[in-house]
């Protein structure tokens, strides 16, 4: 039987293994990049302090962002990097400050994204093994898969964007699906106005309200979305496609049969979806090989709420459902932070306190 400090020492060894570089970003970080990246929703969890010059700082709430940012700031684009970390993060929850010990891996700019993800899964698996978690419940989700699905199902592009933006927001997505499923109101006797006319009307309204025509939404943007809305109402998604979408989003079962079922429903709808599914199948198989006792679920509607996730995402939970590890692929992170080109990124974060609790259960 190992002791807590032995387990921790083993975790340190994992984090400091030879193929990775352990980094420790400062405890006090400028808050603006976190707000810029994750918005108000995440920002409410930060512990903030303001310098006398008005600049806001926060106690380190997460490792991914400062690590990705210094990779960029140090001009390392194009250089494959593997960073690990182990340390405290600070958040507020229900108005109370909380501290967690977090460990994790960040793989940036790796040439083989698929191999990188398997490396991330292996890392998480090893970390769980240190804490004697050999049969976690693993939930897989496919952000990239959903995007490919919307395209393959021939959902009109304007709707694709709307649906995609709500992925990972269960209530918002549910509401949109209800809107799509509702019988369309037929708009009659109302020919869409000419774009120029609409732009003019909006421009007049903005000028008389004293609004800048360039500082916020522009008249063109408003007019285009107005006309697009009219067009969307006219070009509704066919009912059977809406049903297919709903069926897809409701899939949540053991990975193998979930992916088979998605393949079959696409087949029945008249298109072949095996190629996009292939990637997910591979990773699910790799996971099954890594931890034969784990319960691997594919949940088609599962996605973190942050929009920089791109490919496969995962969560590993313990006996009582506590999330012990989570991560995935987030190729949009570096471009969000200002990278001039596409940089692959994948990684995971481990909740050390919960792992320790699991070990002593």
């Amino acid at each position, binding site marked *: 039987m190992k002791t807590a400090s032995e387990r921790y020492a083993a975790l340190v060894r994992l984090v400091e293994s030879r193929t990775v570089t352990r980094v420790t970003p400062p405890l006090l970080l400028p808050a603006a990049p976190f*707000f*810029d990246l*994750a*918005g*108000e*929703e*995440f*920002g*409410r969890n930060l512990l903030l302090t303001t310098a006398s010059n008005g600049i806001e700082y926060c106690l380190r709430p997460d490792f991914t962002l400062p690590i990705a940012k210094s990779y960029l700031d140090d001009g390392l684009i194009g250089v494959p990097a593997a960073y690990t970390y182990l340390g405290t993060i600070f958040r507020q929850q*229900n*108005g109370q400050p909380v501290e967690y010990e977090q460990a994790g891996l960040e793989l940036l700019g790796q040439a083989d994204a698929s191999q990188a993800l398997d490396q991330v899964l292996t890392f998480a698996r090893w970390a769980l093994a240190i804490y004697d978690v050999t049969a976690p419940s693993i939930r897989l989700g496919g952000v990239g898969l959903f995007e490919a699905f919307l395209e393959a199902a021939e959902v009109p592009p304007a709707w694709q*964007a*709307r649906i995609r*933006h*709500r992925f990972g*927001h269960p*209530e*918002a*997505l549910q*509401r*949109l699906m209800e*809107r799509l499923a509702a019988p369309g109101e037929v708009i009659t006797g109302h020919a869409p106005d000419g774009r120029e006319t*609409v732009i003019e*009307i*909006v421009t007049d*309204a*903005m000028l*008389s*309200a*004293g*609004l*800048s025509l360039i*500082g*916020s*939404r522009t*008249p063109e*943007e*408003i*007019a285009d*979305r*107005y006309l*697009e*809305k009219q067009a969307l109402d006219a070009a509704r998604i066919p009912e059977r496609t809406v049903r297919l979408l709903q069926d897809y989003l409701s899939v949540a079962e053991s990975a193998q049969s979930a992916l088979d079922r998605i393949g079959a429903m696409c087949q029945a709808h008249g298109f072949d979806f095996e190629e996009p599914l292939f990637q997910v199948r591979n990773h699910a198989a790799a996971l099954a090989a890594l931890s034969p006792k784990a319960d691997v679920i594919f949940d088609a509607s599962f996605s973190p*709420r942050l*929009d920089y996730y791109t490919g496969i995402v995962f969560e590993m939970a313990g006996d009582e459902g506590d999330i012990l590890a989570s991560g995935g692929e987030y190729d949009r992170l570096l471009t969000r932070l200002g990278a001039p080109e596409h940089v692959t990124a994948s990684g995971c974060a481990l909740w050390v306190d919960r792992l320790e609790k699991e070990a002593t259960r």
Partner: protein
Amino acid sequence: MSSAGGLTLAVPSKGRLEEMTRKAFSSSRLTIARPGGARSYIGSIKNQPQVTVRFYPAAEIARELIFGGVDIGVTGSDLIHEVSENGEENVLFVRGLGFGEANVVVAVPDAWIDVQQMVDLADVASDFRARHGRWLRVATKYVNLTRRHFAKYGIAEYRIVESAGATEAAPAAGSADLIVDITSTGDTLAANSLRVLEDGLIMSSEANLIVSRTADWTPLRKAQLEALLSIMGGVPAGISTLL
């Protein structure tokens, strides 16, 4: 707050809210006295020596009620929800007092003819940053209420710009794209060419008589509270189990 008993009542310190609060109390034959006039922050109720009256700004009253600094108070229900994320768990709303009515609403420039509902706002927010290189900005002094309402509609892609006053001018001033603010008649919004979204009502608020649940409720003070509330139109059912 001493074990010897005694209650602290918080009353809005100025303006129409103070005036209407006094009226509400005097209609129950409770006359609030403010011996030092408007500059004084302490007062009393005639024939109720166990009650100390303190005059605070309305937002301060909400904070004091939530943290148990005062026992009873009159303030807007919106402020209880705004001052702390779980403020309403720490207080007991005794009753609305029929004044200080106002709605907290989401309002956009009237020129946004494509935006009628929160779903439209969700669409606009989702690609705003890609178009403009910054987040959609919402000016408000109701930070918590805004975050909660926007989260309910799955809108995460925005930033709050805290505004101390004249929130309705923020879009024209260029410091925000839309606002969340309080309105009683809608006139101020209309004068600033702003329009409330169809489902943009975040909450309806009015001045409430509110009891702090976090104050130190000894049996004696509870009895004193119930006595005072019964003069003011009744003790809410089950109050003793809630304190």
